[in-house]
């Protein structure tokens, strides 16, 4: 019998239609992958199973859990179902736990809410659940607080909480999006194991095709509140029908065309760079501690080359970027751009600074919301000794916008009038406007949906060829790095552990860490489309 059966579910929030005739099934012991771009209604579908919906929501259709109609259940009955019959794991492990309670108490609470057992008994079972979620008591006692755990560990606590009562159905809403690839792989393995052990049904939501492809038995592909395609995973990957699904798949494995002619002259030299952070623990007269974020890093970038930099979160990638840009002074080593130091006399060297630009990760946070595009894009002119004025300036802005595929009239708009992908184009236009030699892209596509990401990558490849740009491309996503770089550096805890041509490094990793990374990276099944 089907465990969860959603039939023609339609949903509106304050009258706005969000879901349209969504139907899907989850069977015990099987994993249903739900895929779709941001805003396609994946989370809302998940929440509607638990009926934890925003105010003003109206549902029609039916949701049946082991035959019970969820939509007609009373609130107390729903409370009985939540946590006991259906467990849920959320995307953001950093905020999903109450910071003021121990993990033990939070896991035990699931048990206490549903079963009339003593506290001691509940605690004992909480310890077991954590054990199953691979948080052994010896290392992670129940008395830990969430802030004493890493993101992956917190996600395990959330999982332990969700499986403590061995629910029939587990819903995981993008459980690994916020995590590193290696951690992601571990968590996904854990989920798979638990499903198999308890014969649970798992609804796994993700925007990443590759993640789901590895794991799911069945697939549902959603677009703007609609299920556009569904069926067993194997079959589906082989023969996608709906154009949207095909586009999604294509974009996920997109490799931009690049000519990539590289000169044999060195543009940027980084030699033995050390960056220490001094941390004032408690205000100005508090104790200071030192933290070495970048440790003795050396490498070179050739003119016209596209160099990748990969590594886990916190390994020092952004710190290195800031050092190269001359925004912060380094504590050791030197950085030369075209033979000149980027940092002299405690100040950035403006002569070389104007030959480098950067594109940041967050398309929403990297623009002043109160400025018009024109002013935003022309900000780097500040670096020039004689900034362009008047018509010349306007022409330059228009040219930059047009080169990233936007129109001249877009320059009068504000940033909130653009989508994420368009914003990232504007960021690139801003980087291009003073015609730099080197552009640093710090996770420049990580926040974008796959299809948009593919477009931006194409654009970057195209611009690189047209203007003979040199890229330093930073990302944690190996497949992206692989598709756009010639050479790659692998960074771990502030040090470069491996470098070499991209394909060589990824196909035949030599350092243990690189091997781990490559193994953990989810891949689409070969032969898909």
């Amino acid at each position, binding site marked *: 019998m089907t465990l969860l059966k959603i039939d023609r579910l339609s949903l509106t929030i304050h009258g706005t239609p969000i879901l349209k005739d969504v139907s899907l099934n989850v069977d015990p012991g099987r994993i249903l992958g739900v895929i779709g771009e941001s805003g396609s209604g994946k989370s809302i579908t998940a929440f509607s199973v638990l009926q934890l919906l925003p105010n003003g929501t109206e549902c029609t259709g039916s949701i049946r859990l082991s035959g019970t109609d969820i939509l007609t259940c009373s609130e107390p009955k729903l409370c009985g179902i939540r946590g006991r019959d259906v467990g849920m794991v959320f995307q953001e492990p950093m905020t999903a736990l109450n910071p003021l309670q121990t993990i033990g108490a939070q896991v035990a609470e699931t048990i206490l809410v549903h079963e009339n057992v003593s506290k001691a008994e509940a605690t004992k079972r909480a310890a077991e659940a954590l054990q199953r979620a691979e948080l052994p008591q010896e290392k992670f006692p129940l008395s830990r607080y969430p802030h004493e755990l890493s993101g992956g560990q917190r996600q395990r606590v959330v999982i332990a909480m969700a499986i403590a009562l061995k629910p029939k159905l587990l819903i995981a809403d993008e459980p690994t999006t916020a995590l590193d690839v290696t951690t992601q792989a571990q968590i996904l393995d854990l989920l798979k194991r638990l499903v198999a052990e308890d014969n649970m049904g798992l609804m796994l939501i993700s925007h990443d095709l590759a993640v789901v492809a590895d794991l799911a038995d069945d697939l549902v592909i959603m677009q703007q509140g609609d299920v556009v395609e569904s069926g067993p995973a194997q079959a589906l990957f082989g023969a996608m029908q709906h154009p949207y699904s095909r586009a999604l798949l294509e974009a996920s494995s997109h490799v931009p065309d690049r000519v990539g002619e590289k000169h044999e002259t060195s543009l940027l030299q980084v030699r033995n760079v050390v960056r220490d952070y001094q941390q004032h623990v408690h205000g100005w007269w508090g104790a200071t501690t030192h933290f070495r974020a970048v440790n003795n890093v050396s490498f070179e970038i050739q003119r016209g080359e596209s160099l990748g930099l990969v590594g886990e979160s916190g390994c020092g990638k952004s710190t290195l970027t*800031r050092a190269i840009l001359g925004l912060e002074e380094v504590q050791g080593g030197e950085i030369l751009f075209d033979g000149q130091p980027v940092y002299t006399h405690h100040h950035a060297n403006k002569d070389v600074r104007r030959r480098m630009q950067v594109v940041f990760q967050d398309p929403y946070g990297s623009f002043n919301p109160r400025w018009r595009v024109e002013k935003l894009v022309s900000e780097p002119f500040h670096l020039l000794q004689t900034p362009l004025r008047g018509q010349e300036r306007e022409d330059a802005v228009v040219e930059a916008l047009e080169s990233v595929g936007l129109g001249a009239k877009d320059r009068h708009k504000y940033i909130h009038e653009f989508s994420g992908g368009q914003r990232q184009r504007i960021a690139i236009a801003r980087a291009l406007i003073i015609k730099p030699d080197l552009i640093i892209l710090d996770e420049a596509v990580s926040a974008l949906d796959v299809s948009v990401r593919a477009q931006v990558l194409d654009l970057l490849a195209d611009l690189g060829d047209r203007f003979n740009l040199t890229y330093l491309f930073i990302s944690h996503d190996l497949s992206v790095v692989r598709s756009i770089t010639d050479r790659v550096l692998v960074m771990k805890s502030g040090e470069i552990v491996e470098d070499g041509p991209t394909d060589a490094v990824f196909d035949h990793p030599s350092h243990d860490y690189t091997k781990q990374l490559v193994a953990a990276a989810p891949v689409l099944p070969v032969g898909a489309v």
Partner: protein
Amino acid sequence: MSLLFHNRSFLPGIILTTVFAAAALISLAWVPYDTTILNIAEKLKTPSLAHPLGTDQFGRDILSMIMVGARTSIAVALVAVGIGMIAGVPLGLAAAARKGGLLDEVIMRMNDLVFAFPSLLIAVMITAVFGASALNAIIAIGIFNIPVFARLTRGAALTLWSREYILAARVAGKGQARISIEHILPNVANLLIVQGTIQFSLGILAEAGLSYVGLGAQPPTASWGRMLADSQTMISFAPHLALFPGLAILLTVLGLNLLGDGLRDLLDPKLRRART
């Protein structure tokens, strides 16, 4: 625009504020009766057509007194908020730009110190030194506005400093001062406006409190607090004397607070995005 009128706080807030601001402005040019002329024979009249709010113990027209009092209150509170902003905002910006540095520490400790002083007492001491006057009331209220704005600005600026667009500006070679002015200030402006209206309303209350204890504007300048102080012994037989200035304070402060709340909602991009 229609947003403005659908906001539950903004509309009553702006109406009340406008009424009192208008009363203050009109009083510059015209009042029903000259409040510096006493007419003992007409004293303690209850509201009538000639005197819509009645007359006080010296036979002055209470409506006129309230209009002039509005001017006093608004002027004192406005200038005090101005002082707080002019001194506090740059301090806050500077502290945020040098977070963790000596400057930041000094500014913040000084702020803490000012906060630690009981404000009314300091006002009393200031007026004991320089004598009671509207100017000294302004100074006394203004001083306590400085740390409010400094803290607020610093807090808001700190979150902005970690934004990527600030990084982008730094990549464009801009210095801390320039970034503070070009990027930080406009983005904390909303917050400052909202806090400004709140401080404004607190300023009106503070002015009323100070002139109630006799430390605000001196006679013959009318002030609401002094009207209350003067009339409180008569509250049992001439309640209108205390009622109207009390209501004037209440409504003005209420109006400003509502306006502040309304502005907060309207200016908050998060909420605005949610609505559109």
